[in-house]
């Protein structure tokens, strides 16, 4: 099953491997297409995995006091045991987050294990159907699908051990594992990473009895929560400021990437980073850019992925190319998923960043843009308004025309744009970094522990 997030994914081997894993489908070997220049060969293979960070590594970013607070918060939890269970070890937002989070929790002596459920192709086809249905797609829940889902969960229940004091089950695929709960004083939490604001009633009705047996549920946005008889907490997704995608870069490297891609840094650069998906309205971005450019000289970079292994992505990429026409100032990049450093460089080279989604999960590409201090234009959907407070940490738009106007305004009012960028970075620092995520987990464990 696919992860929740809609950001351009980076797929690297996990640094903190879970104890069991599903088969990992490697990223396509076929290099992505670059419209302007041939990509250097070094981009064609994934980089070596980066070792997981330590808490002290974040001191220079969030300050010593913040890290001290995490250690104080963890004191009462020293030696407590926690198990995370999800459905994939590699690839996607959840695995990426757990790769960072699990070592950090262990570092503060919350003994954390990570298990991955297994299942056959039939199981993951069913869970993919559930995933889409829970996010609003049409779906007919057959008895066969129920049986496959429950049988695979039962096999996992028998295979896995659940002796820890806290058990956290991620997403719907392993939700029935709650049936492994015994009379021992454990705390079970369901962490839902997907948008449940408009679920298929049949599938949600099937899963809901399992969810109600948990002690608490966690959602990524207020609007994703459901009416449930258990406490529901809000954990915003986060980014890791030390990751390849977000770490500070030398300007020389940023320049090198721009040179290789034919991007002229002497002129304003407007960028959208997103896979080629209609929900991201890439054609709308090009239309807005062409309107804005009538008044302000600039270039548009559309950096995405997913067109090589996804038929719909390929179709959207064709539409994007058609919309761009032969405009030399519209640069379309179809990048493989391991180009995190290059994406980072593109974002840092940008004058403004756009994420004009018409449907969105949380929108971690917005978080990434804000973290880099970039004035950001976002569609007012999904989790984007949680990040962009209109005219304070960025600007929200509802139309192509609105997007065009904001591009013009931000490109011609650099002081205002700079202030938005500074506020946006501070907003991410306070609310959407990995350290905040660690804080939320420690808080939840303390709150649950206090309930006994």
């Amino acid at each position, binding site marked *: 099953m696919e992860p929740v997030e809609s950001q351009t994914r980076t797929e690297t081997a996990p640094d903190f491997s879970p104890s069991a894993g599903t088969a990992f489908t490697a990223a396509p070997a076929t290099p992505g297409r670059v419209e302007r220049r041939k990509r250097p060969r070094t981009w064609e293979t994934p980089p070596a995995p980066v070792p997981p960070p330590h808490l002290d590594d974040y001191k220079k970013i969030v300050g010593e006091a913040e890290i001290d607070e995490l250690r104080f918060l963890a004191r009462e939890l020293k030696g407590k045991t926690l198990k995370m269970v999800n459905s994939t070890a590699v690839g996607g937002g959840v695995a990426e987050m757990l790769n960072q989070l699990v070592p950090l929790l262990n570092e503060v002596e919350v003994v954390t294990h990570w298990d991955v459920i297994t299942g056959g192709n039939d199981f993951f086809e069913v869970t993919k159907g559930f995933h889409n249905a829970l996010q609003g797609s049409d779906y007919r829940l057959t008895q066969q699908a129920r049986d496959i889902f429950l049988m695979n969960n039962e096999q996992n229940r028998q295979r896995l051990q659940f002796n820890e004091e806290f058990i956290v089950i991620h997403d719907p695929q392993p939700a029935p594992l709650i049936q492994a709960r015994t009379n021992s004083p454990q705390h079970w939490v369901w962490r839902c990473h997907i948008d449940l604001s408009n679920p298929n009633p049949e599938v949600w009705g099937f899963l809901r009895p399992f969810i109600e047996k948990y002690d608490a549920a966690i959602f990524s946005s207020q609007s994703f929560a459901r009416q449930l008889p258990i406490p529901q*907490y809000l954990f915003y997704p986060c980014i890791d400021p030390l990751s390849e995608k977000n770490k500070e870069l030398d300007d020389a490297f940023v320049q090198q990437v721009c040179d290789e891609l034919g991007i002229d840094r002497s002129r304003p650069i407007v960028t959208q980073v997103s896979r080629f998906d209609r929900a991201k309205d890439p054609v709308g971005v090009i239309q807005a850019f062409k309107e804005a450019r009538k008044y302000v000289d600039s270039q548009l970079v559309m950096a995405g992925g997913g067109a090589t292994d996804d038929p719909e992505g390929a179709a959207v990429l064709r539409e994007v190319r058609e919309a761009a026409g032969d405009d030399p100032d519209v640069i379309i990049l179809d990048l493989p998923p391991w180009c995190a450093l290059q994406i980072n460089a593109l974002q840092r080279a940008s004058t403004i960043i756009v994420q004009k989604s018409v449907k969105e999960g949380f929108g971690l590409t917005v978080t990434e843009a804000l973290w880099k201090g970039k004035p950001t234009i976002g569609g007012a959907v999904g989790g984007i308004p949680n990040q962009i407070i209109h005219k304070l940490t960025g600007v929200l738009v509802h139309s192509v025309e609105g997007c065009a106007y904001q591009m013009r305004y931000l490109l011609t009012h650099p002081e205002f744009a700079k202030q938005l960028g500074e506020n946006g970075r501070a907003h991410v620092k*306070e609310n959407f970094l990995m350290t905040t995520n660690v804080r939320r987990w420690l808080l939840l464990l303390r709150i649950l522990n206090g309930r006994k």
Partner: protein
Amino acid sequence: MTTSAVTPVRPHTAVKAFYFNTSAHLLRVTPQKATTLVEFLGALRECPEGSIFQHTFRTLQEHHFIREGFSNDFAEWASSACNEPSLAEALASVDVREFTSVAELRERFVQIVGEFVNRNPTVQSRQARETFYFCASDIVVIPTQYVARTLREFAEGLRHVSVHSIQHHFIEARLRIKLMSNDFSQWLLEDLGLPEAARQLNRIDIYTVTLDDVKNQIIRIVERALV
């Protein structure tokens, strides 16, 4: 920031030490939500006190880096989702420091929204662009390693603690101590006998500067008292 002089005193030891704490909050989603101003008014009346606290006191910390234009979530929603600037202005003008109980604060918001809805019947059922979801906080108070018995140690502690600690002692404290004051001023006044420094701290405007700026202003006032 005020510029009046602080009476210099020699540092001495306080009767009671000042223990720097900090607090951490976990957001909890409540059942209340609103898509019209009438629903909003109803939810304001019914929501748990923790929701009023979250969307006013807490949100100040979550957005502490913004110098202007952000006061509380209610005002932000009235402006950005309802396009009601006059209501937004009225809601934004509510200064949390004028309240020592969340119940009083709730009453003030109910009064503002109620009066606006009564004066403008056409807006009552107009759909907002975004739903307002009422959240609440579960709070954990955490001790830090910093303890002050003298003004010098107090200044040192202030330099080391995070803005979360400043929020806890300086802004949210009034709900605990039920006074129009804060933990820092109370300690300076009652345990170190420094009424002028205590008064100056209470005059810091938290709405026009960031929480880091607030922290720096507090440190400067305390450092001047050290001279």
